[in-house]
């Protein structure tokens, strides 16, 4: 017990392991987060196949444009899924038992973050393999996979922080709808469907200012352009800043829960 109290990491690994075991025990809760980005990648690439012919579109492969969107969205929903399971634990009273255990408070955030990252790696791997089978190709060499994974991992942290923060505050499934809707809106009000260069009207300004656009640019860095720092740094900064904000949101929610 003394060991557990002093080691955030071992408690976090334990909590993360429990979350991952739930994938096997309750697959219906995780499968949509896994299947949705695959469906989205295939559906968008097929539906908007011809959009690549519009002058100014940065790639001639629609799947190169929409696969990173699927990865980013799937990873963020992998994080939000952790928020769902936390709501279930709060409603069933199991979370009170976790809070009464001698686990450090940090571990209550670190554990879910670790499991969200593991889930995100599963999403990124599966979507990437299927997309390559359907014709996706890198334009920036193997590094493209690194930036894609970085964007996916970053979005899973953002999704987890946001999901946990809302779960701690609402303590019931009302939080689930807000988690999904806000992330959905945040990610679609970007260059999700088309690049800024061909956009017109109100969405252009919204997407230009939306930091998720930078994260999408990071994910697409090696799929629509040559790998260049100018396509990467904005996304990394956005991930760091938004991750900090959402994790702080979760941390303050956890503290409020203890009050």
């Amino acid at each position, binding site marked *: 017990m003394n060991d557990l109290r002093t080691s955030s990491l071992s408690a976090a690994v334990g909590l993360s392991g429990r979350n991952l075991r739930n994938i096997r025990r309750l697959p219906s809760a995780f499968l949509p987060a896994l299947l949705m980005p695959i*469906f989205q990648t295939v*559906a968008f690439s*097929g*539906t*908007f*196949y*011809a*959009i690549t*012919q*519009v*002058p100014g579109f940065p790639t001639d492969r629609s799947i190169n444009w929409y696969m990173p969107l699927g990865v980013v969205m799937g990873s963020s929903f992998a994080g939000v899924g952790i928020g769902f399971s936390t709501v279930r634990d709060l409603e069933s009273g199991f979370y009170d038992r976790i809070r009464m255990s001698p686990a450090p408070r940090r571990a209550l955030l670190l554990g879910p973050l670790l499991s969200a990252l593991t889930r995100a790696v599963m999403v990124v791997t599966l979507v990437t393999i299927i997309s390559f089978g359907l014709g996706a190709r890198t334009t920036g060499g193997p590094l493209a996979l690194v930036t894609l994974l970085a964007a996916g991992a970053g979005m899973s942290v953002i999704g987890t922080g946001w999901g946990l923060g809302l779960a701690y505050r609402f303590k019931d499934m009302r939080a689930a709808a807000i988690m999904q809707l806000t992330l959905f*809106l945040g990610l*679609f*009000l970007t260059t*999700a*469907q*088309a690049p800024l260069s*061909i*956009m*017109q*009207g*109100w*969405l*252009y300004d919204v997407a230009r200012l939306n930091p998720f656009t930078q994260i999408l640019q990071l994910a697409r860095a090696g799929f629509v352009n040559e790998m260049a720092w100018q396509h990467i740094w904005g996304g990394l900064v956005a991930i760091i800043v938004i991750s900090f904000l959402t994790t702080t949101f979760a941390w303050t929610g956890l503290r409020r829960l203890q009050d």
Partner: protein
Amino acid sequence: MNTDPTLTLTAPQDLRSSPWAQTSALSVRSMIALWRQPATVIPSMIFPLFFVALGTSSFSRAINLPGFPVVDSFLNFALAGAIVQGVLFGSITGAAALATDIENGFFDRLLVAPTARSSILFGRLAGAMAFGAFQTAFFIAVLLPFGLGIKSGPIGVAVMILGGTMTALGVGAIMSAMALRTGSSEAVQGSFPLLFIMLFFSSAFFPRQTMSGIYGTLANLNPVSYLIEGFRDLTIDGLTTWAVVRALGFSALLAAIGMGLSLRSLRIRLGRQ
């Protein structure tokens, strides 16, 4: 306590003698349920408009692509997809409510009451039809100030509202068949991804003529494509016989199939009870 015997005797007798009155009362009940629980229907009103707004801004330059129909703006092209999307998703709500009636025992209470069996189903479907008509009119009314132009004019709008009503009847009836078979609102709600896939593998968001490979083939085989294109022809081509036939013909066919399935499911459920 009311002791007037005429009040207690006349009401049930009226109901027993008039299936229309029963259907009407049950359809009003289903519409009131939608009104009282806006959270269940608002997504089917807002999301189609959101996708239209996104598409209009993202794909406005795509209208010059080879194979794209001749349109003044992407907004005109997108209206049909929004109507069918909204009606498809909205129709789940009524069917899920029917399944909830089965789950919580209200369906059984209707069966022991002197109610025509078909009224239970038709009451729900009438509510779905009214909501489908409202959705179609709502999408058109909201998008008109943003530059939507409907070449077929007011008659075309009326045809679209009628088509939206029949589509809601068809999809609502198919979903009701599922509700009657399973008696589970979760199973009905679970059909949402199927509708989503049907919608995406169609010409709802982009023309079939610009798709290629297996995706284009699936969109060509998908009846939802032809339903949507009927509405779209009325918007961008004008009031032609072919447009009216496509808009009303496919929705009528869907309604006929749905009604057949749902009545059969009702008979099976009644036979089990």
